[in-house]
């Protein structure tokens, strides 16, 4: 394991450099797009700890993102005792509150296995958008809440989009480091043992309950932070900002990207962003193929295309893009979680 340390640190440093330098070469709008990709990346990072590492499937992390987003909205609009909180400071609070929610889910989750857990968490994802509608005086109902536009702090001379970019990817790198540190140590070994064989792990004295619940809490914390950032970038929240399908897209992004590959997670985050926002673009590309004439504007075509793409990709790459990259580049790629 020692020998892997330097390549991994080098990879991390390279990523940090790319992140820092990129805005100089891209448009303001692209910066915003990449910022949002970064938010999905953070959410996927958390999900990969839960699913890839402790082996619990959650189809409900979109709800944790929503908790984070709504926390930020409520704190910065309603405030505490009328005192509005600056959006920046709401981020860690949103993360913690989402994390606590994750721990609360993690406790009953202990009793559920595999598919049952997946379906129950899916139920959470489905139910969650109903809550703002029910408690509309507090959470804004279907119209939602409008936040103040995000401003760079301390009067830094940079655009809003660039600011969001740096904020998001800065946090992403920090959280990546935290995740890396977590999985390298005792926690990581415990989680890995649990994933590979719960019975063996428990017989060796690993406290299943603690670590599995902890994994849920961590993944929820990450999702909450991501949701909070998204709320700030979006400047408003309503049930449609964190729809049911988001939880599904997170799992799709995780699986297509490849559960334990850094490159895969970034790819997965990009995929989710694409799915949410650029359905018609892909349709337009397909239109250029001979013998196919599809009107990209026609409703239904984007869904068809993405459905087909998902099917084909999973048929060709059952272990996701990360698996493919690993096969192509072997030991050069840094692995988030080494399998012993």
């Amino acid at each position, binding site marked *: 394991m020692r020998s892997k340390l330097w390549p991994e640190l080098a990879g991390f440093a390279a990523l940090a450099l790319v992140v820092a330098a990129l805005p100089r070469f891209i448009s303001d709008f692209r910066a915003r797009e990449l910022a949002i990709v970064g938010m999905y990346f953070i959410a996927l990072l958390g999900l990969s700890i839960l699913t890839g590492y402790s082996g619990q499937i959650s189809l409900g992390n979109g709800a944790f993102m929503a908790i984070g987003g709504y926390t930020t909205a409520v704190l910065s609009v309603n405030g505490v005792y009328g005192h509005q909180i600056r959006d920046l400071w709401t981020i860690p609070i949103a993360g913690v509150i989402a994390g606590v929610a994750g721990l609360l889910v993690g406790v009953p989750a202990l009793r559920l296995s595999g598919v049952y857990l997946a379906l129950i968490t899916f139920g959470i994802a489905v139910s969650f958008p109903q809550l703002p509608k029910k408690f509309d005086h507090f959470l804004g109902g279907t119209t939602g809440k409008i936040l103040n536009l995000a401003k760079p702090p301390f009067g830094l001379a940079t655009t809003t989009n660039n600011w969001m970019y740096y904020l998001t990817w800065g946090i992403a790198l920090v959280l990546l480091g935290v995740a890396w540190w977590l999985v390298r140590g005792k926690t990581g070994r415990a989680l890995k043992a649990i994933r590979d064989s719960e019975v063996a792990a428990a017989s060796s004295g690993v406290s299943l309950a603690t670590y599995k619940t902890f994994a849920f809490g961590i993944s929820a914390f990450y999702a909450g932070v991501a949701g909070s950032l998204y709320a700030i970038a979006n400047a408003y929240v309503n049930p449609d900002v964190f729809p049911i399908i988001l939880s599904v897209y997170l799992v799709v992004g995780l699986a297509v990207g490849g559960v334990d590959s850094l490159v895969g997670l970034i790819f997965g985050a990009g995929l989710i962003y694409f799915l949410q926002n650029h359905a018609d673009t892909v349709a337009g590309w397909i239109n250029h193929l001979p013998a196919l004439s599809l009107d990209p504007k026609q409703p239904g075509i984007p869904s*068809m295309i993405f*459905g087909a793409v998902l099917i084909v990709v*999973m048929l060709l790459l059952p272990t996701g893009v990360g698996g493919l990259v690993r096969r192509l580049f072997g030991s050069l790629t840094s692995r988030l979680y080494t399998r012993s």
Partner: protein
Amino acid sequence: MVLAAFTWTEFAQQLAAGIREGAIYAGLALAIVIIYRSTRVINFAQGEMATFTTFIAWSLMNHGLSFWTAFPIVLAIAFAGGVAIERVVIRPVEGAPVVTVVIVTLGLALLLNGLMSVIWGGANRQFHGPFSTRTIDVAGVPISVQDIGIVAVSVGLVGLLALFFRFTKLGLALRAAAVNPESSRLVGIRVGWMLALGWGIAAVLGAVAGMMIAPVVFLDPNMMQTILLYAFAAAVLGGLDSPIGAVVGGILLGVTITLLGRYVGFIGSTLKLPAALMLILVLLLVRPGGLFGRVAVRRV
């Protein structure tokens, strides 16, 4: 939580409506369980497959066929479609991790949903069902003929399937392939085709559910999405590997949700699904395998 004004007549009607809802959930839940039992896969495309076949029924009826003439044709198409999907789309990823296969079914759902919009457009349309909407008097309570018809057809179908599974050689082979594929091969059963058969039967169940519910709600590409969620809940409630559980769970869920939604003001119509979720979660804590399911007990 406010208990709204109560009359026995209305209660009976709500009960009937709940049973009717439950019958629909039961059919779809049974489809989910059949596929899950044999392949350990949750078919997220079950709802879209059902809506698609309902659209085909609509088209046939639009071309002049009566409901009951179109009915067997649609069932045959649904069966063939289900078998084809399993052989073409699912079989290649048979050995892959479950997450992969689930995503394939999700992709299939997206694909079918889009295809429906493309072929038939997204607008609501009326679906003329086989049962009249008038009510008849049952012990002093006006019950809709349609509700009775829906329940009768659903129960009839489930009953036929039960007989099929219990008494026919093919039904036995299907059951065997689901519980022990290795041994099934050793006695000469072609397990692959049994899985395809399971998908075909599930598709037929979905088609019937779709054609039964379409007259009640309007027919549009997203018709079955919420119903599918309730069907998942019903399947989990009954136990994912228990066909009996799916049927019982479906009816139980339908009745409970309808009554809760009507008589507990706090829940109303917005919180029906979250309420269902809560109830099922509590049940699973007590019985992790659902009402009739089996979960391997791990003693550590």
